[in-house]
């Protein structure tokens, strides 16, 4: 390796941030900067992953201050998987955006690229943060850029949705921050690895757990705090919807995962994990049923996100019991599979909207003939969402089912199976009409730019290929965090 692991860690954060600033300062070159830097970010994420595989998990003390005072970056298998997921989806979204924001739309182009690169940088920083305060900061940066991107289309519906998104997000962040304060007051540390050894069952932990979990539930749109998600995701521009649904909502869940595994674990025997799991069940059922009822394509896809996020929470109790590697493997596989499939679904929605200007599902009659590649894209993504083999969704669901059966959680088995059937229902609502014979020729079908059609298709193919990548993903995930290295190392 040319660089040490820690250099790559800094690079994957600094590259997008620097690019964002440059793109902001040079709006006329925003596209070129965006494309170039995206390529570089992806390469550095790959390089970071390789050096993690070679050298094991790593910790970078930025500025050399060390854990209690300075900012520590931590990279382990879980971070690497999240970074790779972001890179893959991010690259596709970048290519898509090239066609989606044409040169004549200079205003949107000038804002999209800095915001998107900034968001990418915040996500990477979040996935590499080792302490709970730093996680708050990155989560805030992420939230703000996400809200700005949501409002980018400028339509009243989008602006209203973005406003709601902002308020919910801020409320969530405040609750999380308050929780951080409780932890710090109770145990005198913010670093997750340190906290892991310091935390004990007690009032501060209870207060912190409640505040942080509810705050993250709001930001992560877990039922019943999901109400802001469908309008925000459905009204944003297509590439923005894709990155919100595929990546942004995963960030609060990622923090939740880290927290419950390493900080809040003394509360494993309380009702909290069971409650999260129960809310997950409710999310799957509610989200799916809503998706079955939406007349508009993007709303359907957005409610599907509400449902799919529920799966992530089902196994939280099992995660805190034993068999952690298998459970974590199941949850993370699901996150990754959903990211690829959902981004592809939103991008295909963008293509349809671009071509016909009509996102009413009822008017999708005969679309297979006019937009074969786009319909195929959604079909492949849908395959993974329904968890039919071979696809990333199938492998993820296999792992979930396996764990649920191993723990004897019958109700989870039923919900996972039922969720798949409901998903089949809402995916077919979209796909079915495209096979129908159309009486009249569609009048105003515009050609979809190649960059949009192919990037969406590429993602949907990735959703399938993920079905064959399970072994690698689990191997990568097995790179465990290094033990504490307080004060230099």
């Amino acid at each position, binding site marked *: 390796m040319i660089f040490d692991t820690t250099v790559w860690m800094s690079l994957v954060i600094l590259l997008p941030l620097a690019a964002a600033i440059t793109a902001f300062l040079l709006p006329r070159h925003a596209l070129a900067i965006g494309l170039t830097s995206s390529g570089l970010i992806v390469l550095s994420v790959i390089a970071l992953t390789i050096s993690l595989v070679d050298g094991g998990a790593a910790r970078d003390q930025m500025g050399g201050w060390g854990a209690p005072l300075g900012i520590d970056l931590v990279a382990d298998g879980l971070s690497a998987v999240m970074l790779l997921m972001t890179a893959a989806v991010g690259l596709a979204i970048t290519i898509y955006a090239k066609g989606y924001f044409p040169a004549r739309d200079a205003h949107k182009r000038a804002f999209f690229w800095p915001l998107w690169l900034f968001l990418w940088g915040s996500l990477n920083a979040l996935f590499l943060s080792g302490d709970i305060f730093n996680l708050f900061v990155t989560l805030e940066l992420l939230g703000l850029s996400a809200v700005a991107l949501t409002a980018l289309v400028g339509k009243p519906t989008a602006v209203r949705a973005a406003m709601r998104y902002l308020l919910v997000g801020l409320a969530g962040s405040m609750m999380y921050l308050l929780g951080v304060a409780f932890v710090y007051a109770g145990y005198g540390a913010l670093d997750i690895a340190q906290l892991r050894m310091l935390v004990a069952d007690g009032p501060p932990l209870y207060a912190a757990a409640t505040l942080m979990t509810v705050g993250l539930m709001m930001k992560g749109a877990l039922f019943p705090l999901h109400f802001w998600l469908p309008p925000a995701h459905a009204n944003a521009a297509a590439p923005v919807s894709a990155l919100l649904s595929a990546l942004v909502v995963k960030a609060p869940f990622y923090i939740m995962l880290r927290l419950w595994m390493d900080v809040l674990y003394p509360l494993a025997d309380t009702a909290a994990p069971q409650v999260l799991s129960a809310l997950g069940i409710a999310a799957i059922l509610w989200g799916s049923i809503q998706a079955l009822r939406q007349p508009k394509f993007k709303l359907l896809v957005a409610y599907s996100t509400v449902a799919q996020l529920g799966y992530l929470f089902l196994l939280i109790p099992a995660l805190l019991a034993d068999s952690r590697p298998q459970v974590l493997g199941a949850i993370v596989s699901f996150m990754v599979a959903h990211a690829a499939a959902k981004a592809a679904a939103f991008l295909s929605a963008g293509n349809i909207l671009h071509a016909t200007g009509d996102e009413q599902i009822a008017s999708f009659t*005969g679309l*297979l*003939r006019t937009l*074969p590649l786009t319909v195929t894209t959604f079909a492949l993504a849908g*395959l993974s969402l*329904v968890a*039919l*083999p*071979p696809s990333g969704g*199938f*492998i993820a669901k*296999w*792992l979930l*089912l*396996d764990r649920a*059966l*191993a723990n004897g959680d019958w109700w989870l*088995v039923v919900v996972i*199976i039922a969720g*798949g*059937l409901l998903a*089949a229902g809402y995916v*077919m609502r979209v796909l*079915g009409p495209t*096979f*129908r*014979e159309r009486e009249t020729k569609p009048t105003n079908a515009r050609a979809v730019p190649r960059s949009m059609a192919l990037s969406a298709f590429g993602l949907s193919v990735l959703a399938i290929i993920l*079905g*064959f990548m*399970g*072994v690698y993903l*689990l191997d990568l995930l097995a790179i465990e965090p290094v033990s504490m290295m307080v004060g230099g190392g």
Partner: protein
Amino acid sequence: MSWESLLPLAIVLSSFIPGVMIFFFSEKQAGLRTGLNIAAALVKLVLVAILINGVWRGDTLYELRVSLLPGLDLALRADALSLLFIILSATLWLVTTVYAIGYMEHSKNRSQFFGFFSLCVSSTMGIALAGNLLTFLIFYEMLTIFTYPLVVHNGTDKAMGGGRVYLMYTITGGAALLLGVVWLYMLAGQVEFTDGGALASVAHHTTPLTIIFFLFIVGLGVKAALFPMHGWLPRAMVAPAPVSALLHAVAVVKAGAFGIVRVVNDVFGVTLAQDLNLLQPLLVMACITVLVGSMFAIFQDDLKKRLAYSTVSQVSYVVMGVALFGPIGATGGLLHLVHQGVMKITLFFGAGSFAETLGIYRVSQMNGIGKRMPLTMGAFTIGALGMIGVPPVAGFISKWYLGTGALDANMDWVIGVLMLSSLLNAMYFLPILYRAWFMTQQEAWPHEHDFGRFETHWMLLTPPVVTAVFSILLGLFASLPYGLLDWVELIISREYLL
């Protein structure tokens, strides 16, 4: 990696790759598409021939493995049972492709049709060559998906409705199967298909194994159209005739029946299945399906629907044979897997030709059709007689083995079922034959096309004649060395460790 290990994959890909390529052809490139279709079907036959030779010799080199997760392999492997199904599919695919080219000559979206057609066959090959339950499940679900566009091909309301019902049944069935497979893997680790069963080490988990078996039967029974899970089949009849032919003889229905054979023989093993008292309920289910299917068939005036209910009934003979617990009955079941395919495809080709040539869709319109289309109706007659079990057509042989097997297993009442079923078969087939040959035409044919020299387009005429000849040859030369019977007895002897 040796070339032998890649052979099963090559057989799957030999229709997958052409299938994907065909999507990119325009409607006008019919010649290219036809050429590719036929070439792929022939290449597949050659590959299958190589494989037959090896498996007959007892080679076990033909296996390819890819790990999906730790302890979760995708495995393609050829054994004697795979080949039985593969030979049937590969041969009938070639014949059906010829038929479909003729049948679809003037219809729309042919690239889409032939693309999915090939993908269906490729999934069937995967089902046949699956070396373990996971692989089977994957191809089984792929078959569900690729069949849907064929069922709804006409794009009408009726087609869409049929497609929706088809998906509801099969996706639900698939979910049951998935649950069963995950559960069994959790209990027993990777379940490879093994002669005589693979579950000896976990045989003491009687309750879970019983539930898992039930889940499998639900999952596979939907496709095999076991009563009361047969509802989708008649409605899927809206598909174009070549699709119906493929669905009934080779792909979907057979995939379910084949899956049941696999589960009973190579997952549970007949002995364990018998010990757990699983075969008796299965046998009863099969017998009910045999009778109920035939009874429904009698009341259908729509020719394709009558054939559909006949399929419901006939495919359960395969299940019956497997559930009889004895080598002779099992032989009958496996023979019928092939025989039913060849005979039923003949009948569907016939029905399609009547519709395409004369616009005839109903039994009540068929008066005097034997005079107008003697060769097609002749082939249809052979198929129908075979279904009833008249010698020397192939159907007689399988019914003979089933009957003897029932006696051998001391289940005499099954003989009663067989006889009653044959009677019912006669009741719904003989009136058709009587109308066709002995009644005179009353009014003009609804939509008559003139195809010149022959009674119909030569591509519609040749396939049923060929398969009818097959049906007779299979019956006449059943016991020829290296014939079908030899092959089936090889499978059975490996299973029953004779």
